[in-house]
């Protein structure tokens, strides 16, 4: 088998198998969310724009994708293999030495403690080819299924839900469904921020076809701003709502009885369970905290609208009952026959760029390979395909369990690839401590420093980054796209798959003689088709014989792509064809809604965590973009004003947020968008970017019984106010080491770093910090004892090298940022750094709203004053929101505020009387 798919290998060239750097534009795929937008990158990467020909985005990009060109610098990159010395420092070693040590270490530990004493922890950021080789090494040759991935924190509940319902992990629909639906329901999805390009498709559908949008979320997110109906649901209550819906549909006779009868099984039990959980609209209201009128509006709309797509994301997945929530949603779609039909399907919005590719490979502890599990036939089939000496025969440890096993000492060797578990896993402080116990701790990554590396990694292996590496990724609609290289790999960086292949060979294993990612892909495709015979949904056999050139030129294609016509398929399951024994889909009876943890006197609030618009994960890449940093530069916690008052926390002040697992210190934001009793903090900050904001350390490690996915959005917490004598910022050309006790958050600014700080330091201590950082005698200062203000700037020539402002109240840094970005400042500009006043050529645009075109709130308000009364008008006048559109909800909010100020206009539309009460109440009013 292998001989057929592998072209002759040229091993000696492996280290130099660099994709030729193209002189022209390169088509690739964005490395951020699961939308998987196509991009066009210029030769040096400076310009990255949307690919008009890519069917995921048709040329559109969100603000993160648009800023990719700002993120390709080599600062902070890991460029050479490094090994930790006895003194704790890391020192450069050769690739040979590093790979020998990795291989020898793995072999020794397997020999001494068995295969389950080693583990690999992968990432949804990896390419499918990387996943494939790692998975093959572990499950076929080392003999352990301890291969898991950060997708466990992201998509695992959907995987489990899909498998239970459809028999396989298949997203039945496609993005076109979002254009064709008449009703789109977003559950636990802040798509406006997290999947902006898809959200814009939804908004266009709303505009052009008058499609309705229902948003179900615990938080009044920017996505909720755009909804026709917003249901601010109680945490953990999603399956109650969808059970209620199932019951309602049953009572109404709105089921697709034919579909149910021919293609499904298990409705009776599922409906019975649903009736127990949510027997009526009243019962649903009681379980969900929603108003009956809103529930009725939603149910009615769902029942009446055959073309309904229900999209769900982390709000559903990141739950100890995430799998049941997924199935509760799918149940309603199965019951109405709305699966895989144009404009009608359940639709999982994937978080990561290649979580789907990882799932296809089987790079999860509970799957074997290529949509096969640990059944004897599957194990045997894969053994034969791989010619594998030591197959894993049972599931391995899922992420949270894996790190528990490390803490116990059961796992002694770990290889972490392209992810940061010491920051992102729940109970992350415990994870960090566990990592310190490993006998062999390997990290392959792009960066030389992160919370995981700094947890004592022994070997650091420099990996190629986006733009350097080449392979495939799969997006939320099963579309396989190429990520192509357009930059030369810097230093000694190498492709991740080649590291696994090299270690495998050094361990003496045959079957890893890949010459290129194309070799790996062909084998992966061949395995998907191997003895498939329509028993497995994932079949890309049609791609198994691509030539290198064909692989390089591969157009974005949706699987399955079988060997027949070689064409992909947009939708599945409209007419059955489920992957179960009986070919039927299965209704699942969900458990009664219940959060994994209970509130106590000491921890009376629920901590929700999530993403913000302009950052991605732990900011390794987005954190390098000055443009993105301007949106929300500090780690923060959102609190309902009543909770803020109750706990003495000031809006704009600081707060310590603590859970039984850990604590951090965040800027407090009091907002009615957050429900009372619940607080929200973003996930992005680590010890690299903030003093005390590792939110993962606060999250309870309670997991879903089916998916193993942790409940990241409902940890019991307490919030207490914190005050600092001074707060403010420092802008510096180089990084600054701040003394103990200083709260700080670091972001990229043009040609430097921005530090937001707060501390109780004395004037002298601050002066020391500033003098050390300034490293120049040319200093201007404003010291205002009446305001306890210290501000100033240091210069080398006419260029500011350090700017600071510290006072008891928060300081705007917009003007300072603008001046810091310039190479020379004249005398009046020097002075304006102190006065905070802009001279004529500067404008104070207010807080940044549109990242793509750098448009501030004041500019937008001015446009509204001049008569712009829609986001479209504002976009025409200021360009704001006219690229990725992720700021359009905020623009709409500004319009509403402006209009509300002018006259009490009722925004409830005449044409939706059913929703009038709910919609007007929920979407207007702040």
């Amino acid at each position, binding site marked *: 088998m292998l001989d057929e798919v592998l072209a002759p290998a040229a091993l000696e060239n492996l280290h130099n198998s660099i994709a030729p750097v193209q002189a022209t534009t390169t088509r690739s795929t964005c490395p951020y969310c699961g939308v998987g937008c196509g991009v066009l990158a210029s030769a040096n990467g400076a310009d990255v724009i949307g690919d008009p020909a890519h069917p995921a985005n048709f040329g559109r990009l969100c603000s993160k994708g648009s800023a990719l060109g700002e993120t390709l610098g080599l600062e902070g990159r890991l460029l050479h293999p490094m090994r930790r010395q006895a003194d704790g420092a890391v020192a450069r070693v050769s690739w040979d030495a590093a790979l020998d040590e990795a291989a020898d270490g793995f072999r020794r530990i397997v020999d001494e403690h068995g295969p389950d004493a080693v583990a690999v922890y992968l990432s949804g950021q990896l390419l499918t080819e990387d996943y494939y080789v790692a998975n093959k090494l572990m499950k076929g040759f080392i003999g352990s299924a301890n291969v898991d991935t950060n997708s466990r924190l992201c998509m695992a509940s959907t995987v489990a839900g899909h498998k239970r319902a459809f028999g396989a992990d298949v997203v039945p629909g496609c993005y076109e469904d979002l254009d064709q639906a008449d009703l789109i329901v977003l559950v636990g999805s802040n798509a406006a921020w997290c999947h902006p390009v898809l959200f814009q498709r939804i908004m266009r559908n709303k505009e052009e076809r008058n499609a309705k949008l229902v948003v179900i979320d615990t938080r009044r997110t920017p996505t909720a701003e755009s909804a026709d109906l917003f249901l601010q649901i109680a945490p953990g209550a999603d399956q109650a709502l969808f059970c209620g819906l199932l019951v309602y549909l049953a009572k109404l006779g709105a089921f697709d009885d034919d579909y149910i009868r021919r293609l499904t099984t298990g409705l009776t039990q599922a409906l019975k369970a649903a009736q127990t959980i949510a027997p009526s609209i009243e019962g649903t209201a009681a379980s969900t905290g929603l108003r009956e009128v809103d529930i009725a509006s939603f149910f009615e709309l769902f029942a009446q609208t055959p073309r309904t797509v229900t999209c769900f994301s982390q709000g559903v997945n990141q739950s100890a009952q995430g799998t049941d929530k997924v199935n509760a949603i799918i149940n309603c779609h199965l019951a109405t026959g709305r699966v895989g039909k144009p404009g009608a399907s359940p639709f999982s919005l994937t978080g990561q760029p290649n979580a789907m590719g990882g799932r296809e490979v089987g790079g999860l502890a509970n799957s074997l390979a290529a949509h096969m599990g640990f059944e004897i036939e599957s194990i045997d089939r894969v053994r034969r395909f791989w010619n594998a000496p030591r197959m894993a025969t049972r599931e391995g440890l899922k992420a949270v369990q894996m790190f528990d096993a490390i803490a116990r000492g059961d796992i002694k060797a770990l290889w972490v690839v392209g992810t940061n578990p010491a920051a992102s896993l729940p109970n992350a402080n415990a994870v960090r401590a566990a990592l310190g116990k490993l006998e062999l701790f390997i990290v392959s990554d792009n960066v030389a420093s992160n919370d995981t590396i700094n947890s004592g990694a022994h070997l650091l292996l420099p990996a190629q980054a986006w733009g350097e590496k080449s392979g495939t990724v799969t997006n939320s609609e099963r579309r396989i796209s190429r990520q192509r290289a357009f930059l030369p790999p810097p230093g000694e960086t190498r492709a991740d798959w080649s590291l696994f292949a090299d270690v495998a060979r050094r361990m003496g294993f045959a079957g890893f003689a890949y010459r290129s990612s194309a070799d790996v892909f062909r084998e992966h495709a061949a395995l998907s088709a191997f003895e498939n015979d329509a028993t497995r949904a994932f079949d890309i056999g049609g791609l198994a014989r691509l030539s290198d050139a064909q692989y390089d030129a591969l157009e974005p294609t949706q699987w399955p792509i079988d060997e027949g016509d070689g064409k992909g398929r947009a939708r599945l399951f409209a007419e059955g064809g489920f992957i179960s024994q009986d070919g039927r889909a299965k209704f699942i009876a969900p458990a009664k809604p219940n959060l994994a943890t209970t509130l106590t006197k000491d921890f009376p609030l629920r901590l929700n965590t999530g993403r913000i618009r302009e950052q991605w994960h732990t900011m390794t890449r987005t954190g390098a973009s000055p443009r993105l940093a301007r949106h929300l530069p500090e780690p923060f916690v959102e609190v309902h004003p009543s909770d803020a008052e109750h706990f003495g926390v000031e809006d704009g002040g600081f707060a310590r947020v603590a859970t039984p697992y850990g604590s951090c210190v965040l800027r407090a934001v009091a907002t009615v968008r957050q429900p009372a009793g619940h607080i929200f903090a973003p996930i992005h900050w680590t010890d690299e970017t903030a003093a005390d904001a590792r939110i993962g350390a606060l999250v309870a490690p309670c997991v879903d019984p089916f998916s193993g996915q942790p409940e990241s959005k409902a940890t019991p917490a307490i919030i207490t106010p914190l005050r600092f004598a001074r707060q403010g910022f420092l802008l510096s050309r180089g990084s600054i080491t701040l003394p103990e006790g200083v709260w700080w958050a670091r972001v990229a600014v043009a040609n430097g770093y921005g530090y937001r700080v707060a501390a109780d330091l004395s004037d002298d201590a601050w002066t020391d910090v500033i003098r050390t950082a300034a490293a120049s005698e*040319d*200093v*201007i*200062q*404003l*010291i*205002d*004892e*009446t*305001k306890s203000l210290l501000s100033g700037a240091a*210069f080398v020539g006419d260029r500011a090298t350090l700017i600071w402002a510290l006072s008891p109240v928060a300081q705007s840094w917009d003007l300072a940022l603008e001046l810091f970005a310039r190479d020379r400042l004249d*005398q009046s500009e*020097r*002075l304006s750094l*102190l*006065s905070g*006043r*802009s*001279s*004529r*050529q*500067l*404008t*104070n645009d207010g807080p940044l709203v549109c990242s793509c075109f750098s448009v501030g709130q004041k500019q937008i308000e*001015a446009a509204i004053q001049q008569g712009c009364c829609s986001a479209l008008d504002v976009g025409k006048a200021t360009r704001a929101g006219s690229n990725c559109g992720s700021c359009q909800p905020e623009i709409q909010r500004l319009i509403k505020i402006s209009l509300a100020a002018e006259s009490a206009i009722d925004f409830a539309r005449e044409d939706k009387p059913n929703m009038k009460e709910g919609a007007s109440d929920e979407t207007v009013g702040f």
Partner: protein
Amino acid sequence: MTVLQDCRSREKLVIVGAGMAATRFVEELTNRAPGRYDILVIGDEPRLAYNRVLLSSVLAGELSVDDIELKPAQWWRVAGVEVLSGRKVIKIDAAARRLILDNGESVDYSKLVLATGSRAARLPIEGADLPGVHTFRDVRDVEALSRLGKEMRALVIGGGLLGLEAAYGLARRGVDVTLAHVMDRLMERQLDAAGADILRRLVEEKGVRVLLNANTTRISGSGRVENVEFADGQKIPADAVIFAVGIQANADLARQAGLDVGRGVKVDDGLKTSESDVFAIGECAEHHGACYGLVEPAYEQGRVLAMRLAGQGASYGGSVVSTNLKVSGVRVFSAGDYLGEGDARRIVCKDPRMGLYRKLVVRDDRLVGAILIGDTSGAADLLDLIRSGAKVSSMRDELMFGPPMQEAA
């Protein structure tokens, strides 16, 4: 001189001193009560009153002596004021209400105003009277200093206002100037350390070498100035030495007449001395222990006295002094409690490279002192606020940075 004793219809008012205080007083008085007094001004300089403040500009060659004359002869004539120039009063006979002049003549008065000003002090050190040692006080001094050649080395002793102006003026003339100051900073009576440091840099940029902590102990030379020696042993060659170490009130005349004299002629809030119908204004006067060496208090005193003598109610409550250094391109303003120690709150803005320093001192939300270096715009407003004691919390930013600009649309 007969005319002086004839006009019995009008009260005889004599002013001793023909400087800036006298001129302003006369102007105020003749405006308010024209013809009420028969006025005589007696000055010992052989010229009409001039603006002494601008002598540094004359020294710098930026103005001529004629340019700084306060009022032309015509003005004095029109005002009906008789001016006796180059004549010195050597005695006051208060009991007889009579003055004795240096030519032996006498002048009777009904009311007497002393505006005798002050003189430049010299350090009591060896060599202080050698040829080549100058002061910087009047036109004669300026004329002497103007004769110093370009190749000459001048040493100015004193880093106050006058010393700086003298040093700058000489440097402008191309003289090689060193300024020696006994304190650790320039203008210590008007500036704090940070401000003085910026001033030093600015002055040095103008070509003046500055020595601080320089305690002059001896001026030496055979027949004329050759070297200046300092307490630390340093010895600096010099062709000329200019003392700018402060002023002394010219109060000898009053003292001899038995008036109450401290550092100056003591006056009350009506500018009256201990002798009836004898008043004192300007640098010769001491009001509540304060002798002012600046023109503005002299003007205020002159105005108050003029009002009183014109029959209007007025009282002098002391002056909030401000200092303006007049050195081209080096603007310095200082007023009030410029240090702001104790419970005062300071607002300091500085840009040493650009020669910019602004300091406001606030106590109990009132402006009590200020220093401006480099850009002295708004100084008058600050002085008004210091004097009025108005609350400033709402305008602190404006005081520091001027009125807000119109934001670009």
